[in-house]
């Protein structure tokens, strides 16, 4: 029943929180501070949280519940903030030592911990190539799959395909990687005479298959959210179902579909285990650059393959790779959300 205005009112009424809510908030804050400063002692404020929540639950259940819900919300947002802060903080030494070279140094030694040279260019290139291949696979096939599920499939096919796509999304990335490592790598060496174990092409194909379900399910949501009357109008004018799909439904859902592709690309960029086990993770650029059957490393597989042996500045360089990844994927996520929001507004905000 919050009628407060201003910031306090907007976040759910601090005003009428009462002494119980205040107490719980205080104890939670104490816990957080303790965890930051003296994690070994965190059990004492934690016990205090339990006691005060129990006390609050008995005396004023509603306020306690609301305070806890607010606290959960704050923690959720805080997690994202903490990820940003800690990644950036740990990567600063590498950025400071290398300057802009960390993103642009392309010649000479690229990665040598004894000389303290860390350039992320090979990883950026590897991630770019694998992502492009993955997007070239996942985007058209995923959108076609979404069109099939939402527009063309008979009921039985839909009831098979939707769980199948979900299950496909559920296959762990390490399993894809394992298949790529044991089967596809061998296949490429046997049949296509690749000189070494692992290639960007295989990683791109595998990651494309992994990003496919994401594209399908998000694009399907977008296509399904196109209002029925729009399609009905087209059909009533004598257009075939396929004409309606290509000329009315897909254009109307276009922004949602591109959001789906962006999310799929984000998945592909962040995919770790498949790239780590399939690639040989050598830190050099493929020669020539466009040799997609060559071997290099991606941002993700750099972290996963070097975290064990890294320390000091090298560890910081791994965090720098993490920052690049995080910023890229967050950008893609924000972009897709912006597009989706615009689409919802355009379609009359059918929530």
């Amino acid at each position: 029943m919050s009628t407060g205005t201003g910031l306090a009112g907007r976040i759910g009424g601090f005003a009428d929180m009462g002494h119980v809510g205040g107490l719980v908030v205080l104890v939670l804050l104490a816990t957080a501070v303790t965890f930051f400063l003296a994690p070994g002692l965190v059990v004492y404020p934690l016990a205090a949280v339990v006691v005060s929540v129990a006390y609050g639950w008995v005396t004023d259940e509603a306020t306690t519940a609301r305070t806890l819900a607010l606290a959960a919300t704050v923690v959720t947002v805080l997690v994202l903030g903490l990820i940003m802060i800690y990644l950036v903080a740990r990567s600063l030494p590498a950025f400071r030592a290398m300057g802009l070279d960390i993103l642009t140094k392309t010649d000479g030694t690229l990665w040598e911990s004894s000389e303290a040279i860390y350039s992320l260019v090979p990883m950026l290139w590897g991630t770019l190539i694998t992502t492009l291949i993955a997007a070239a696979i996942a985007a058209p096939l995923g959108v076609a799959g979404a069109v099939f599920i939402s527009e063309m499939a008979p009921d039985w096919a839909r009831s098979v395909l939707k769980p199948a796509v979900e299950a496909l999304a559920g296959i762990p990335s390490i399993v894809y990687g394992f298949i790529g490592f044991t089967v596809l790598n061998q296949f490429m060496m046997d049949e296509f005479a690749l000189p070494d174990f692992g290639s960007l092409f295989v990683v791109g194909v595998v990651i494309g298959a992994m990003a496919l379900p994401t594209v399908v399910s998000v694009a399907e949501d977008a296509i399904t959210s196109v209002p029925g009357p729009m399609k009905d109008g087209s059909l009533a004018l004598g257009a075939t179902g396929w004409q309606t799909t290509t000329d009315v439904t897909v254009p109307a859902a276009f922004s949602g579909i591109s959001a789906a592709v962006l999310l799929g690309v984000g998945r592909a960029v962040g995919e770790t285990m498949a790239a780590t086990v399939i690639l040989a993770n050598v830190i050099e650029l493929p020669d020539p650059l466009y040799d997609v059957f060559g071997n290099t490393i991606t941002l993700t597989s750099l972290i996963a393959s070097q975290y064990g042996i890294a320390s000091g500045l090298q560890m910081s360089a791994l965090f720098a790779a993490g920052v690049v990844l995080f910023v890229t994927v967050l950008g893609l996520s924000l972009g897709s959300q912006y597009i989706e929001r615009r689409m919802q507004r355009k379609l009359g905000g059918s929530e």
Partner: protein
Amino acid sequence: MAETNTASLTRGTSGSLRYAAGTVTALGVGVLLVSLLAFAGAVPTGTVAGVPLLDSLAVVLGVGALGMIGVGAASGAGLLDTTPDHTAGTSLAAVFGVVGFVAGGLVAAQTLGLATLWPVGGLAGAALGVGLALVPREDVALAATGGGFALVASLVVLTGVIDSGWSWQPNGLSVVFSADTTVPLLFGVAGLLLAWVGAQAIAGFGTQGKARGASLLVSANAAGMIALLVVLVSFIAVRGWGPMTEGVRYGLFWEPFTWFQVPIWDQWVIVNAPIVWLYWPFTMEGVAITNAVNGVAPAIVGTVWLVIGAVTFAVPLGVGTAVFLTEYAEQGRLTALVEVATNGLWSTPSVVYGLFGLAFLVPRIGNQSTLLSGMIVLGFMLLPLVVITSREALLNVPDEYRDASAALGVSRWETIKTIVLPAAMPGVITGTILGVGRIAGETAPILLVLTGEPFPAEGPDLVNLSAGFTSSFPFVEVSAINPDALLQSATALPYQLFATITAGVGDLSDGFRWGTALVLLLVVMSFYAVGIASRIYFRRKLDA
């Protein structure tokens, strides 16, 4: 030819057209499937009944191509009852522009030996493809492009331009195309294109034809996805089943079930009961030299604890956030911010979570890889999934419920507790189960914060009922839990699979790897199966 055509007024396609074009489509699909199998090595490319497989495929493809050209020519001459458009449209032109570019470039580079001038050949080919697609009437264009390409592909093999000794290494790429892989690829593309144009011919070209062709392609794509799932799962199942079930012994015995001493009588009473006895070494043993069969029991235990820990951490937080966003907060900037943050968390790469755990949790918890860190990091990963699905479930609870409850004078919290949350519970549970399926298979985050010894003999020993109050790290207050286990490194199924790959073969057999992969897949897929089944169940119940 225009025989007894009493078909409907709207789309009259004669029987013979349907028959011929249907055959063409079937041949195209057949060539596509056999080519795929041949490419994957599932069908030997050797000789079948004296004729090399690829040669017989070429003949079939050529027959289909001639059939398509025949259909196109007959339709172009007005012999068939078709409704072609004036032009085939840009999609066909785009497809055959690409096909023509690749083919022209290859011919220029390979046959004519123009090393640097291959783009010229490519452009010429593209121009030819686009021209054939756009200039003639639709029926002729489809026959010329789809049928023509299939015919050329077939002739290239039949005339020996590409024979079994053929190979080609593109300039600068470290790949060699040999006949054994190139011909199936070429035939696969030709078969698909032939099936596409054939399907358009079945419906008599025109808009109906386009719809039919598109439906063929899109359905094939969907079938491909199902095939991908089936192939992946069955591939692992076939290879992993043997190692996974190696040494399983079971039986039903009539054995002492329980026994006790009767106090006054001073006699032992032994109760016999049928007992199912099962020894499944792969899931009950760790890795040790003394084991007859090495197993993944420690990893299973580790995964179970990780999941339990992540759920206890993420579900209260996630549901609390969703309740706050949906029930308490006014919809505005703040809720939008939280939503953006949640979606950002959802798409954050798993390895970044690992780095975060390494930087934030590890120094605070034991300063080494610990089970607790693994639980919390996976909890962080699960959190956005729980928030998103719970919020959706809460939003789906009709406002009438809330209004009715409020009209009866029930307070807001009581309404949430007794009306809204129970109504939303199915969605929350389903979403959580699906989310758990995802994090149970995650490797990258736990790689950085959880793992130590890759193949331990025993899993984390977390339940220790005899343990009392410990002071070593006073984090867990429940005395039934052994807090030391939380502060030690552990292993988990996905990590163990990763370790089998990186560890080199050594003392681990190939079967052990596949068995591990199968167990992991089974664990994850069972979460998904339960999640999807419960969602279907709850939907049915709601609809009923």
